[in-house]
């Protein structure tokens, strides 16, 4: 095996949800997840947040493995 360097090719997962109660659609939905819960999910993926930005529509996080 080649001397293993850092694997560049990414894995990409996209999940779409729908609200059990349509009234929720106007809300923040997944954006209500608190940072502790997000960190729980990222811990399962061996990642941590190093930078973040957001606007009216979504939040974007840069992660480090």
């Amino acid at each position, binding site marked *: *095996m*080649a001397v*293993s*360097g*850092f*694997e*560049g*090719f*990414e*894995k*990409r*997962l*996209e*999940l*779409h*949800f*729908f*609200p*059990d*109660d349509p009234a*929720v*659609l106007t*809300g*923040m*939905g*997944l*954006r*209500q*997840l608190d940072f502790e*819960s*997000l960190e*729980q*999910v*990222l811990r*399962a*993926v*061996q*990642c941590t*947040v*190093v*930078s*973040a*930005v*957001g*606007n009216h*529509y*979504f*939040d*974007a*996080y*840069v*992660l*480090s*493995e």
Partner: protein
Amino acid sequence: SSLFVYPTKIIIKTCGTTQLLKSIRPLLHYACHLGLTLCSCRYTRGSFIFPLAQPFPHTSFKEEVIYLEESLPSNLCYRKASVMPCKIPSHSWHVFTASDEAHLVITPHAPDVLYTLEICMTELDRVLARKFFKRPGDEKTGDTAGKEMTELTGIGHINPGSLICDFAFDPCGYSMNGIIDGDRYSTIHVTPEDGYSYASFEFVGSIYDDLDDVAQVLKKVVQVFRPATMSVSTTCTSHEVWTRVGGALEPLGMKCRSCTVDEFPAAGNVVFQTFTTRRK
């Protein structure tokens, strides 16, 4: 690596040897507490440079598909897994999608019909790749060094006006997320080490955009990295977008070596194209 959180959509994109698919179960758990039910899933990746270094459940695409099948709820009953072939054996494209009945097809009338371009570039130009190394002894933080790289490499000009958050890693490597406008983003990840240099560019656009803009963005991306090999996966319901890719790259000396199309539940069409510089 990057994470994007919308009210009813979440996208996680990770490099290295992360166990990305292990995020599904905790995400379903938290979403359920928010009154949200999963309705569709899409998993994509290129071909690993170091496949033997990948941990469970990513040691093979077969293992990934089994893990996805076991992790997804039964209401996502429309499922498809495919390895889209390519003449360059090390550059196949792996796609798995799953959907429930209601979200099986994205109709062109859907107000938010976005398309996604996932670009993977290898054998970067060495001089350009060196710009993604931190200088020895450089005490700058990842944020500050990241901003410097964004400017130095011209990445800041790919989608002018986007809100960028960027980060430079020690001793090399770079990641950025750009909020373009509204609910669209671009994201770039670079591992510049010689011998296995790699960069990715992902761009979410709307089929109502001026498609010349797509060509402009692609040209700038090639100018930043000058890769010898480039693959482009276009996921969309309309057909025009992917046709613009070749038109943008060929004048830059990138020759199209393969083009495959496939249709997937909840994702519409995936068009996978690979390009190499003529010198190859």
